[in-house]
């Protein structure tokens, strides 16, 4: 079964540092997403990406965040200057046809980001 792969599984960084979270979506998928989940809370939407550009973003996705699909296979989330409140699990997801298919979104196993 195809998977969405995320690396690293866990990253610890100092406040103010830049981090890049990496994702390899399923190869024939066209829509890509980043979500985050603070411990014990709900899954929060950050951004969606289609046709090499952002199609939608939430209020959380401010100027400190950016996404990129640098080489046609990887999909990255960059946080320029991390804050303590950025500590969370970050999930990448991909979808073949915007989620209206028989398989919905496929999520990766997540990157646990800890900002100290």
């Amino acid at each position, binding site marked *: 079964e195809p998977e*969405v792969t995320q690396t690293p599984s866990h990253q610890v960084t100092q406040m103010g540092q830049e981090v890049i979270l990496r994702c390899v979506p399923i190869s024939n998928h066209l*829509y890509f*997403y980043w*979500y985050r989940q603070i411990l014990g809370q*709900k*899954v*929060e*939407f950050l951004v*969606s990406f*289609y046709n090499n550009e952002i*199609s*939608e973003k*939430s209020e959380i996705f401010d100027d400190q965040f950016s996404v990129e699909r640098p080489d046609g296979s990887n999909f990255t989330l960059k946080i320029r200057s991390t804050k303590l409140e950025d500590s969370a*699990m970050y*999930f990448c*997801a991909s*979808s073949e*046809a*915007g*989620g*209206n*298919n*028989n*398989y*919905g*979104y*496929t*999520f*990766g*196993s*997540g990157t*646990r980001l800890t900002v100290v």
Partner: protein
Amino acid sequence: LAKTTQPISMDSYEGQEVNITCSHNNIATNDYITWYQQFPSQGPRFIIQGYKTKVTNEVASLFIPADRKSSTLSLPRVSLSDTAVYYCHLDNYGQNFVFGPGTRLSVLP
């Protein structure tokens, strides 16, 4: 954006059938109803998707009434390993990305 409402938590015992109902009074014509399961420290995992009537797969059934203002996920004969958070999600060709808080199901021995 269409909003969903689910019970915050449910308890069940092993071997029982569990039904989790989601309300979506403002569902749009193009919205599909998808249910996900999430275990701690893992990403949500697709369970089932439907548009109307009944859909069944190897793990669950999804019941959607004619007015589509609600949907019910049915898990037959749950086991301890079904303890998880279950999310009801509406998607409209990728245009609705927001997940609700989900239902925390606890299966007891």
